């Protein structure tokens, strides 16, 4: 009896994560999919069919027959949407590369710092999270605007003769994204680099590698899982980013998060905005699956 109970308990622990996924991912996603095949209406809620749970199966079937994919066709036909997707992907790729370029040396420096310093350095990376994300992005407005700190500093240095227009351009968006997501790049990289065995580098040196060669032949390949993890942690939220482009970007900064916001709030078209969200998810699933495959392969290699 006790053993049966134990095995049930063991099995149910396996089911906990599935239940979690079902509750927090699949159920909301299905609701969004359902919305995306509905039609907008001037009503409360603003779409048809509303699909009341209490209608029972016959009522549901009646509602399901009204579903249509016209919203998806609409999105395909208007160039705005795919241009927004492309522009978001481009901004996300550039921003992720920049974050890697800045984050890698940072993580490397932290991992090679004296052991006693490391907790402090790690703390400094995490420290910005103690202030609200929104406030930190707002602060950049003060730094980047025409009479802002950056321009005043550059003018004082004499590097520029006239204040630069940075705020409300794509450059400001890149600065905002790199700043906000840098910790997500640094932390996995640091975790990886810190665990690496320094004696491997010594061995490489003994075998005739210069320090640079040793880095590219030993440290870099070993750090790839950290690089990939960091890049995905930055890339995926950046594609759908809304706050940074709307606060720091110009009116012509095209990102899918903003297009979706306009569709939802300005057009009041919940169905089309849901369709936009479903396609965004499909676009993001591909890199996530690639990521998981590379993770799986890395694990196999370790074994």
């Amino acid at each position, binding site marked *: 009896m006790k053993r049966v109970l134990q095995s049930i308990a063991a099995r149910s622990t396996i089911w906990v994560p599935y239940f979690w996924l079902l509750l927090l991912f699949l159920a909301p996603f299905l609701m969004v999919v359902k919305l995306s095949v509905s039609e907008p209406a001037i009503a409360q809620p603003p779409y048809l069919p509303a699909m009341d749970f209490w209608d029972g199966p016959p009522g549901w079937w009646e509602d399901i027959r009204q579903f249509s994919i016209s919203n998806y066709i609409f999105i395909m036909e208007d160039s*705005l949407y795919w241009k927004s997707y492309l522009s978001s992907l481009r901004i996300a790729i550039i921003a992720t590369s920049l974050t890697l370029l800045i984050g890698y040396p940072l993580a490397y420096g932290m991992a090679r710092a004296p052991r006693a310093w490391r907790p402090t350095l790690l703390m400094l990376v995490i420290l910005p999270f103690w202030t609200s994300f929104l406030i930190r992005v707002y602060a950049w407005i003060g730094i980047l605007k025409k009479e802002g700190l950056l321009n005043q500093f550059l003018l004082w240095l004499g590097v520029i003769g006239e204040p630069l227009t940075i705020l409300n351009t794509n450059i400001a968006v890149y600065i905002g994204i790199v700043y906000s997501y840098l910790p997500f790049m640094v932390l996995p990289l640091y975790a990886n680099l810190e665990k690496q065995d320094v004696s491997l580098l010594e061995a490489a040196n003994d075998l005739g590698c210069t320090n640079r060669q040793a880095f590219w032949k030993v440290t870099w390949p070993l750090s790839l899982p950290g690089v990939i993890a960091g890049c995905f942690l930055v890339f995926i939220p950046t594609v759908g980013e809304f706050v940074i482009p709307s606060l720091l970007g110009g009116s012509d900064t095209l990102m899918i998060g903003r*297009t979706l916001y306009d569709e939802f*709030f300005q057009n*009041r078209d919940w169905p089309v905005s849901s369709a936009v969200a479903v396609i965004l998810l499909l676009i993001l699933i591909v890199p996530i699956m690639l990521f998981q495959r590379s993770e799986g392969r890395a694990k196999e290699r370790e074994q």
Partner: protein
Amino acid sequence: MKFLAKSMVLPAIAVALTCVAQAQERVVNVYNWSDYIDESILGEFTKETGIKIVYDVFDSNEILETKLLAGGTGYDVVVPSGTFLARQIQAGVFQPLDMSKLPNAKHLWAEIQRRTDAYDPGQKHSINYMWGTTGIGYNVKAVKERLGGEITSWDVFFDPEKLAKLQDCGIHVLDAPAEIIPAALNYLGKNPDSKDADELKQAAALLQTVRSSVQKFHSSEYINGLANGDICLAVGWSGDIFQARDRAAEADAGVEVGYSIPEQGALMWFDQMAIPSDANNVDEAHEFLNYIMRPDVIAKASNYVYYANGNQASTALLDKDVVEDPAIYPDAETLAKLYVTTPWGARNQRLVNREWTRIKTGQ
């Protein structure tokens, strides 16, 4: 065990007591625009009626509408603007007002009533809280330097050459097609409330010609922008621009903000108080509306927010710098030039929004 029982009974009694207290406490949940009331009014209402106010604020019609359409907001009084109100009434979001509970409605201003009829036929669902115009706010000194005078006409915005002269000092425009497209239609000599697709496209084309000079389409940043002198022209809401003017005067950093209702006329907008169909405290909500319509109360609100209200009896109680400011209370001649608009149908709405995105992003 005894201890356990005791420790459970006491909190249970406490909970029961607070429930009774709550059942007796009368509450009204109000959802209004941010920075839109003299807060002492809320305290005085509670003192007089014993009804507690839970006051919450929003900063865009779109946010309010999304909440209302999703339903179950828990608010008893909300304050949408005219065109939004009209659509929300159609969607069945609001309940008809019980006029027998609103004796102060007799103070309302017939002229404003007549104009809000376009949104709420017969004023069955709403009362006017404040009204104002959508005009041009500007930095007086910067504009004088570049254009040699004050702003009196929409030319400064819709003439690409004139607007380009102000480009270097910063131009913001409301991110709200329902405010800007009618102004363009009016400037072209068309009916600002036109529902004709071709005319709407012409208005969008006109805006496209001035697009390159506009720094940002945003519905609130211009308040700080004007006040700090970061921008020199904004097409925006009258009261927001007055707020910028006051902040600039307080800061005393040499920035003077002006507001113009251009000679071609401007859009007149109305913020209306209404009660959602699913409100829980309907009686309290009516009492709140009735209180707001008391001339001395609404006068106090206007004196604080620098907007005109729809209450004729309050005019005598207003501060001189409010009631005598033609930018707030326009004279009869200007008032005649102000126009109202009604909501676009679903098809035109999509057309306009698509054009608006094209104007903003070039896509």
